[in-house]
């Protein structure tokens, strides 16, 4: 049964500003998540440099990655904030999940006047709605 593993938000400078794991896989250390995020960000910049064509969203970036253990889907917004999610192999509709997460980000992060731009996200409303979105995803894609 496909399910979501982890979700990341990376700011335009390559800093990890949000991360959640949803699976029962053993967690990494917090620092490893930071490394992972900034490494991925660096890879994106390189891919963008060498990519001969630009994708539908105007940047030549990694959109999808598949391995035997997980799949990764990434979404680069025009503001250079990056969302990416990993799921178990065969997990589908990850792009749709990211677009919906982006809507929540626009609502509960950007419209929260006390959120400081580009800083780590610690917003309870966003947590709640994101959790609901993940549950909805796991429910609708498991039947």
């Amino acid at each position, binding site marked *: 049964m496909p399910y979501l593993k982890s979700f990341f938000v990376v700011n335009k400078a390559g800093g990890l500003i949000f991360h959640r794991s949803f699976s029962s896989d053993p967690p990494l250390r917090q620092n490893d998540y930071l490394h992972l995020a900034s490494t991925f960000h660096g890879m994106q910049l390189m891919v963008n440099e060498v990519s001969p064509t630009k994708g539908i969203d105007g940047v030549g970036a990694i959109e999808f990655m598949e391995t035997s253990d997980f799949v990764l889907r990434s979404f680069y*917004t*025009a503001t250079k904030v990056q969302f990416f999610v990993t799921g178990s192999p065969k997990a589908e509709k990850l792009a749709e999940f990211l677009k919906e997460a*982006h*809507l929540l*980000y*626009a609502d509960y992060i950007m419209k929260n006047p006390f959120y400081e731009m580009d800083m780590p996200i610690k917003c309870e409303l966003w947590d709640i709605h994101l959790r609901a979105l993940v549950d909805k995803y796991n429910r609708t894609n498991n039947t």
Partner: protein
Amino acid sequence: MSKVNLQRLGETVFQSSDRVSAELLALTYGSTVKQLLVDYEEPDEVNKQLDQMGYNIGIRLIEDVIANSKIYTISSFVDSAEIVAKVAFKMYLGVVANTVDWNSDKTEFSLQFDDNPLTEFTELPDRYSDLWYANILCGIIRGAYEMVQMKVECKYTKCVLRGDDTNEIRIVLREMLLERPPLDDE
């Protein structure tokens, strides 16, 4: 996307989003401007404050524009102008603007709109004749552009409250902010 399609998109997003009463918006904005005039006294200074407040809104609002309109690509400045005029204006003000007076390099244009819900009930007293009452819009546009890597200058040039026949905001593209590694990155 063509102008007509953008206009339709603006209409769709406008219809599907939550709205507050225009009166509440106009009154809230009015009392904000009034308070700024009390605090800063000089209309010029108030223009600046409104622009700064708008900027703070714009850098946040852009994400909402992108997420709700689902326009993930902004390929050029010319494209962006139509998105501001037909989609963003419709989404947040319920009116559609026109893009006019492009310069030959396509780096400058004016946004023209006849109706502005912010100014609907306002009459500008003579002593505040230097005030650009809805100057917050300039800041919003400037902030939003900056987040999508375009540095623009944004100035009110016509306002119906000053007796002009329409409202007009001039937008000038100053530079494309490209991400470059610093030169001494060794």
